[in-house]
């Protein structure tokens, strides 16, 4: 590798690191992404002198770029804000798939007895990339509603998954120790795909962000491994950066949900839920108080302080602009309005901030959980828009509940609570919320955007 290529790769690596650093703060975040993109362009251009084109090679390369770039850019531009998580899953999956294909191609090249230092990272990259590809596809399907978001489980599932994993390890060792043959490594790739599917199926839709983040780290490691195969500095460093930061991010995300990563991944959720079935059943026979938009509008208009708790329901209904309008109307009347953002509100951490920012809600009104939890007792109305599990007191009070121990917003301490929901159906965790039956609670049924629009009219009239 020539000096200039090496220096260009180094520059790209520096830009990736600076980009990640800037991405970690709200002010520089957008610039950080652009910094990393510049690094990417430099890295790709620096690779050109390394290429030995065949005629077919140059055609397929240009064709792949010419189709991939506009399709990627346009789908990323067009996707709805609410569909961001599955979009990230899709882009992550194709990256893992690409890494697996690169490794397969190298294995096909290398013949029966490749050097261990090539064969091992090739196999690793192919298996991990394959798991990431298939797992991301399932995550995408769950979030997109193509398959059910509830965990898909069957007896002995963990054992089956473990057996697949053992088969993969065994076959990988055979391929390394005995002979590297297509029959072995193609089977390995197929097993990796099966494991990717089997691994994500039993995980509930609410946990998909954590899974996507983990698979993102997987793809990073897979890419780093292809760097070892191709002796390419840029692939090793960029892939490892993503592998490491992605792993940390995954841990931070599961912490934000008050659970360990192992608990998220290994289906404990389903088991606990079955055990807590008795607790959910107690909800039957309780009564709820349903209100009209006029009732709620009046209550809001004459409150001193309102805290809005947005959730996924708001995102689905695309109600963020109507919510902002309601907040403006209330503020005009001198009501203090703040937004309480649970770390996992929406489908991904940070999802809700993005949505509200889109509706021009001032950044300063968005309060993180720790910051705002002390303010609920002095709040007249807590307006819960399409959120459920993140305000469920069962997380504090009911041992054995699947969400026990998860940090929640202390909405139950507010003087009045308004729940805007489409129905009495439980939230993503699939458990009942006792707060819905609280005497302080008024239910406002209907589509969030619809109800918010009616509330704006009601507040204006009040």
């Amino acid at each position: 590798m020539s000096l200039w290529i090496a220096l260009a790769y180094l520059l790209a690596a520096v830009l990736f690191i600076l980009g990640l650093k800037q991405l970690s703060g709200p002010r520089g975040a957008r610039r950080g992404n652009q910094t990393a993109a510049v690094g990417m362009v430099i890295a790709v251009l620096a690779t050109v002198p390394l290429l030995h084109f065949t005629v077919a090679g140059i055609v397929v390369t240009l064709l792949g770029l010419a189709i991939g770039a506009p399709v990627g850019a346009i789908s990323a531009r067009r996707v709805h804000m609410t569909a961001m998580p599955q979009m990230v899953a899709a882009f992550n999956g194709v990256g893992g798939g690409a890494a697996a294909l690169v490794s397969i191609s190298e294995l096909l090249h290398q013949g029966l007895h490749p050097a261990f230092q090539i064969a091992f990272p090739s196999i690793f990259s192919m298996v991990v990339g394959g798991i990431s590809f298939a797992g991301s596809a399932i995550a995408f399907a769950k979030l997109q509603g193509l398959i059910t978001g509830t965990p898909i489980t069957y007896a002995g599932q963990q054992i089956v998954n473990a057996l697949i994993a053992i088969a993969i390890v065994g076959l990988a060792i055979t391929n390394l120790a005995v002979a590297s043959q297509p029959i072995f490594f193609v089977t390995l790739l197929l097993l990796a795909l099966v494991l990717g599917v089997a691994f994500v199926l039993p995980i509930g839709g609410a946990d998909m962000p954590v899974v996507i983040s983990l698979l993102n780290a997987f793809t990073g490691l897979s890419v780093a491994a292809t760097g070892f195969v191709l002796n390419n500095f840029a692939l090793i460093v960029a892939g490892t950066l993503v592998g490491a930061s992605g792993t940390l991010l995954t841990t931070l995300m599961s912490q934000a949900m008050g659970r360990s990563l192992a608990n998220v991944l290994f289906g404990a959720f389903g088991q606990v839920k079955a055990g807590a079935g008795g607790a959910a059943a107690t909800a039957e026979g309780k009564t709820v108080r349903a209100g009209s938009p006029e009732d709620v509008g009046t209550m809001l208009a004459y409150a001193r302080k309102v805290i809005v708790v947005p959730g996924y329901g708001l995102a689905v209904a695309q109600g963020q602009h109507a919510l902002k309008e309601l907040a403006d109307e209330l503020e005009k009347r001198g009501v203090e309005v703040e937004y309480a953002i649970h770390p996992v509100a929406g489908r991904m951490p940070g999802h809700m901030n993005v949505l509200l920012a889109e509706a021009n809600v001032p950044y300063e009104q968005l309060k993180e959980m720790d910051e705002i939890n002390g303010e609920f007792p002095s709040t007249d109305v807590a307006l819960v828009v399409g959120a459920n599990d993140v305000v469920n007191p069962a997380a504090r009070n009911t041992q054995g509940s699947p969400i026990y121990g998860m940090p929640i917003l202390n909405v139950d301490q507010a003087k009045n609570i308004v729940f805007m929901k489409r129905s009495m159906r439980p939230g993503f965790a699939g458990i009942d919320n006792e707060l819905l039956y609280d005497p302080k609670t008024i239910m406002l049924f209907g589509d969030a955007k619809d109800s918010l629009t009616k509330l704006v009219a009601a507040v204006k009239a009040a």
Partner: protein
Amino acid sequence: MNSELLTEFTYFVLAIFVGIEVISKVPTILHTPLMSGTNAIHGIIVIGAILIAANATSPLEIIVGFAAVLLATLNVVGGFVVTDRMLEMFKGRQAPAKQEKK
């Protein structure tokens, strides 16, 4: 272990530490954009894809190479664009007035 492999292994280990260190203080609100941003960065696999596609000769190599370039390009272009779209929502806010409590 030859010296090239040793050098590569050194990059690998150091990059692990940098990767963890550089994002250790990220606020919750940026988790999603950060995930999306790192997702775009592993789109660097496009380099690997081009390297193998460029000198493809057999039909199998050509097909695999094409698929790899296509998927990797989707990853890298889509990844950066979708991250930019998330982050453009944060612009124009009165950022200096925001409270940085953590």
